[in-house]
């Protein structure tokens, strides 16, 4: 067997062949969020229902009367992904369907900002849903405005270069962990095997499960569409977006251990949204990444 064939075989074995996402969707070139959906559905399979609030994905799926997905979708209001999903789950159970996986699928704005009340409510009640936040680090649907997931240093239309975002990204995983839900995982479109594996694991857990998925957005990040996977991988490998999971709010496992982390600068320089950053500001980003990494290591040890 040639090395290529070997690789093919491995791919076929690790990622389910089933495609629940068709072509014809409306995403931009190089959209990370689109890949995230594809991988999630590979893991969850056909018996899945999606609740999608306002976000790029509310558009990507296709305009009425089209849909590019082979699972049912309920389009819900921006702030209601978690509570709508909770209601759908209750409604399905009340009518005899206890098997279907109910997923709230929202962007970072719909999760970190306007939807956090509903998410916190569902998590505290431990409602039986999977909540996936695909994080492209701004409000992209409405034309690149900052969210509380926008990282320090980034340009957006509401954080102009002169007043770039000067606060760090909200630590959504820590917030969810504080709710002591059974399962939390981070994932990246650059590591589909890891993502699918964790999603399959989550499928069999009951209660609230939360995924934070890193999904580059060339349009909003001013990066090249062909660099999407590269950027996502760099973010994982330099510790900017580490891959880990937290069980019951306590047991932290790092899924991809990094012996040596590359500097974040190369990653920042591939994105127009960070172009204005001066060396001192790049150093500040690096220091923040280092500190977060240290915290993560400590939480694994402890």
């Amino acid at each position, binding site marked *: 067997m040639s090395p290529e064939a070997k690789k093919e075989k491995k791919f076929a074995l690790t990622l389910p062949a089933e495609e629940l996402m068709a072509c014809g969707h409306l995403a931009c070139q190089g959209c990370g969020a689109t890949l995230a959906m594809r991988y999630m559905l590979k893991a969850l399979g056909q018996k899945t229902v999606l609740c999608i609030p*306002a976000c790029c994905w509310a558009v990507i799926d296709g305009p009425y009367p089209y849909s590019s997905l082979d699972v049912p979708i309920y389009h819900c*209001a*921006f*702030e209601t992904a978690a509570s709508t999903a909770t209601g759908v789950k209750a409604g399905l159970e009340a009518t005899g369907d206890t098997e279907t996986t109910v997923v709230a699928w929202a962007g970072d704005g719909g999760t970190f900002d*306007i939807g956090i009340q509903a998410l916190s409510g569902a998590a505290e009640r431990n409602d039986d849903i999977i909540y996936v936040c695909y994080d492209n680090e701004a409000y992209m649907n*409405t034309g690149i*405005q900052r969210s509380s997931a926008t990282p320090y240093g980034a340009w957006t239309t*509401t954080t102009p270069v002169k007043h770039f975002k000067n606060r760090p990204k909200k630590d959504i995983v820590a917030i969810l962990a504080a709710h002591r839900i059974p399962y939390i995982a981070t994932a990246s479109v650059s590591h589909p095997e890891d993502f699918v594996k964790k999603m399959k694991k989550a499928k069999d857990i009951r209660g609230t499960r939360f995924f934070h998925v890193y999904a580059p957005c060339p349009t909003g990040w001013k990066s090249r569409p062909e660099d999407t996977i590269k950027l996502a991988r760099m973010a994982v490998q330099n510790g900017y977006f580490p891959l880990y999971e937290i069980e019951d709010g306590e047991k932290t496992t790092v899924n991809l251990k990094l012996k040596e982390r590359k500097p974040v600068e190369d990653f920042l320089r591939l994105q127009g949204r960070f172009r204005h950053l001066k060396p001192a500001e790049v150093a500040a980003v690096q220091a923040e990444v280092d500190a977060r990494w240290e915290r993560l290591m400590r939480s694994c040890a402890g």
Partner: protein
Amino acid sequence: MRKVIMGNHALSYGAMLARSQVISAYPITPQTQVVELLSEMCADGTLDAQFIKVESEHSAMASCIGASVAGARAFTATSAQGLALMHEMLHWAAGGRHPIVMGNINRAMAPGWSIWTDQNDSLSQRDTGWMQFYCSSNQEVVDTVIQAFKVAETLMIPAMVILDAFALSHTYEVVDVPDQALVDRYLPPFKPSIKLTPADPRAFGGLTGAEHYMELRYKLQKDMEKAPALIEETGREFGKVFGRELGLVDPYLCGDAEFVFVTSGTAGFTARVAVDELRAAGVKAGNLRIKVFRPFPFDRVREVLGKVKKAAVVDRNCSYGAGGIFYQEVKSAVYGRPGMPPLIGYVAGLGGRDITTAQFKEVAADAMAKAKAEEEIVWIGVKK
């Protein structure tokens, strides 16, 4: 200074010239450019204001209320879903008598998702106690924001300046951007007689029993009743300073008209093309554009309608189970008055569907063929 600007930027310029002190907003299509420009103006120092980038519209309105009660001039802008999410706070702003000015871009409500124009978003807020100004040109938008602050702060009632999605929000027009010195002369700084300050400790909005609550609302209504005259007075004053008068309604060729279209927003300008064409064909048509919806300009509407033989109210909205909302309001304005014409109600252009000149002519033909007013709403341009 004359500038070619989009409707959304007309709102931003209005808010800037009014020297808004606190702006708190949340992005939504098709409003985003309003706050993007204001955000830039705050960043580059053109506007000396605090800009709060909140996490939802509910918080946008709540923080405008906080800023206003602290004595600052507050501005925000939103659209559709965002306005609906503010609903609780809209009652709060009006009930608390906080003279906030807000731009709202008329966009159809979900589901299905739509970003295109109709008026159901703002008309659903008609009973919150806000004044509502429906604009139909970018010039009118800039001017109205400035006037709205003046009226709002005089009466301590918040005001919404409303424009159609895309048809106005994203349409570029020549606008005479008023001179700052003149605006300063027209609109004095906001100096509320009471505010939240340790120098004069008061509790605002506490538990209000049946003994007092009704009086608060009576006063709101009484002050709203003063609004039509005040809007006309400040509108004339605006004319003196800037050369453009602002009124409650905007009649077009209504003087000798036998038939009028009653419209609001940009659809009125399409109606005017139809009016011209009908007149060329020998029909004495006219157009009554209602600019101010709250307070409702009862007198001005009756003045025009009292002289015509028939009127067609064309609504870009629908109160399901009752019909077009302007139609309901115009009917109530003429109720029990002698000499008023039969009114026919039409619903058109929901979710951004175009309302064409041909459709206005269809409306005219339909209305003129009808002998009397009808309960049934006529839907224009709908696939049945």
